[in-house]
């Protein structure tokens, strides 16, 4: 068909050319601008999110997960949860402290595309609710709550200033005997080193007995209390000073053998 058109085109061009050169005629109108693009141009595609994933999908607190995505046809890719603007293809490690859904928004000339990736955070079970106080053992009660009672020189009576200690000891001992109905406590009587060992053997016995009597009068079961005197044979200090003497003049509590 080309062969047939050509002679027409050649002819047209000759006509125009001749017309122009031959004589003064009305110039031809300038070529028209191309026609404007119509409003309803055929639409571009929205950004294509090939994938937006989290790996692994379940972590425990403190463990990382890896977000990965690939987006095409986007001019802007954002991920929420403070990640922000990212490149269209990428990966990011996250450390969520609770189950989190990450939202990716891809914006492009074709529109906006969105995708979600969820990281589930499992946590170890929380600690059991706190008790108001841990339960002490009998040995702890004996060591810490049942305190020594002290005496004046050559005396075995319970002093006024030791009454509070006796009462505290009575309460603690009653607790001990409730915890273990078979438990028996020995009250040891001791003396300072100045008197004779012979007299002190008997004086220590008086001190243990007086302490036992005082506890019985406060309701401590007497059959659970034994007494023994160590006289001045078991001092807890040996300095020749009033402070040490006073510490040695004591009734002390121990588990019965």
């Amino acid at each position, binding site marked *: 068909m080309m062969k047939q058109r050509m002679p027409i085109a050649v002819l047209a061009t000759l006509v125009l050319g001749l017309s122009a050169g031959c004589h003064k005629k009305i110039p031809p109108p300038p070529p028209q601008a191309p026609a404007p693009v119509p409003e309803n141009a055929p639409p571009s595609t929205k950004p294509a999110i090939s994938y937006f994933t989290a790996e692994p999908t379940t972590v425990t607190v403190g463990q990382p997960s890896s977000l990965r995505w690939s987006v095409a046809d986007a001019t802007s890719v954002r991920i929420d949860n403070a990640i922000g603007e990212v490149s269209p293809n990428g990966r990011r490690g996250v450390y969520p402290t609770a189950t989190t859904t990450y939202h990716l928004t891809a914006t492009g000339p074709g529109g906006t595309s969105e995708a979600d990736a969820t990281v589930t955070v499992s946590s170890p079970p929380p600690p059991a609710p706190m008790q108001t106080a841990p339960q002490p053992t009998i040995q702890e009660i004996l060591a810490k709550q049942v305190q020594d009672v002290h005496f004046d020189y050559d005396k075995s009576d319970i002093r006024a200033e030791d009454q509070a200690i006796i009462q505290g000891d009575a309460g603690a001992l009653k607790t001990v005997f409730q915890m273990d109905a078979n438990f028996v406590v020995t009250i040891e009587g001791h003396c300072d080193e100045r008197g*004779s060992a012979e007299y002190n053997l*008997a004086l220590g016995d008086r001190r243990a007995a007086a302490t036992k009597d005082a506890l019985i009068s406060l309701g401590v079961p007497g059959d659970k209390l034994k007494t023994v005197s160590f006289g001045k044979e078991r001092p807890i200090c040996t300095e020749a000073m009033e402070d040490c003497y006073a510490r040695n003049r004591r009734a002390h509590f121990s588990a019965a053998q």
Partner: protein
Amino acid sequence: MRILTVSISFFLALAFVSARQQVVGTIEKNPGKPLVAVADFRATGTTAPTLMATFNSTVQNDLQGSPVINFIPKTLYPLRIPQVPNDLAAGLAQANAKPAPTPGFRLADWYAPPAKANYLGIGYGAEDRGLFVVFAYLYTTAPNITDLQQAQVFGKVYTASLDQSGAIDAAHHYAADILAQFGGQSLIGTRIVFVSDRTGAKEIWTMNWDGTDQKQITKYNSISTFPSASPDGRIVAFTTYASGYPAIQLFSLDTGRKLPFYNQRASMNAFVSFTPDSKQIVFSSTAGSGAAQLYMANADGSGFRRITSSGAIEVEAKINPKTGTDIVDVSGRSGLPQIYRMNIEGADVQRLSAGTGEATNPSWSPDGSHIAFAWTKGFEPGNYNIFVMDVITKDTTQLTAAEGRNENPGWSPDGAHIVYASKRGRQSQIWVMNADGTGKHPLTSAGNNEKPVWVNAEK
């Protein structure tokens, strides 16, 4: 005035010179008792001579410690020392020789000043078939006896091992034989029981009266203390925590084995004292509830009955070893501990100690005339010294002073010595002294040693 002064000075000087002449001689420790001289013995052989220093000093110590004689110091002896009866015979034969021989071989030389001896001991040591032998004699120097045979009180041979302990043994026997002539009691065979912690725990120990042969009796690795002994020398009683509570045990001093004893059910049983026949005891027990009281029982603990009910602490009962009918003890009935006397039934109670300070650890002399005890008289609590009291007149003499804390005096069977514990600094040791407080010396050194009791030789 000048003449008066000169005259006074002259007479004073004269008196001084005269007095000096009278002062030369023995200061008699035991007035009226015989004066005895024992010369140093020498020896023949190779080993025996090395033992004689020990032999001589042991004889001297035993004689000096006795109340029945006065031992004359060796500085007053004549220059020539006789060794055998023949020396004395030679001396007699030379009596009228001219020039006069050096003094010493004649008994009269010893009778004369400065020695002024009533008796003379002579002798020598030797070796015989691997043993140490001592030929020893005692002579009277009384001038009315001119026959040497009659003048000899005794002559004996003592045989012992050829070593230091043999020398000590032979010396003890020779000295005992001398003292026996004058009514003195021998200490040979007597022992001391005591408490020692040298093994790491308080145990009961025994030793000879001179501190030799210290032996452990108990091995409880607990607290074993407060020993006492039966008058027949066979049993030691003590208190031990081996079962968990202070309880009484008896051991045989013959076999070293435990003897049966019944302890009453009580938080405390302690402080045993035997009757003179060793068949019964008095002790302290808390069996009756309340403060420790005195009980009487058979020596094995059976048949017990209470003898005091003072309501106060009663401890350390000691039965009179001469009469067996009264007791002294330590009681808190008037406040701080004091010493009381009562009869064996617990009646007729009277306080013996003065009532000041704290008086404890009473111990009877063998003849029941005195008690030795520990007292804080005039000092702060804990500052104890040994005192001796005449139980009739209550006259009291102090025997220790400014020499540590002195306690638990115990009388020797001859009534002439007191054994006791002395704590100086942090350590307690056992010492012995003459009953008048002189001649103090220690018997122990290892660990802490205390609570000595002098035990009679076994009957």
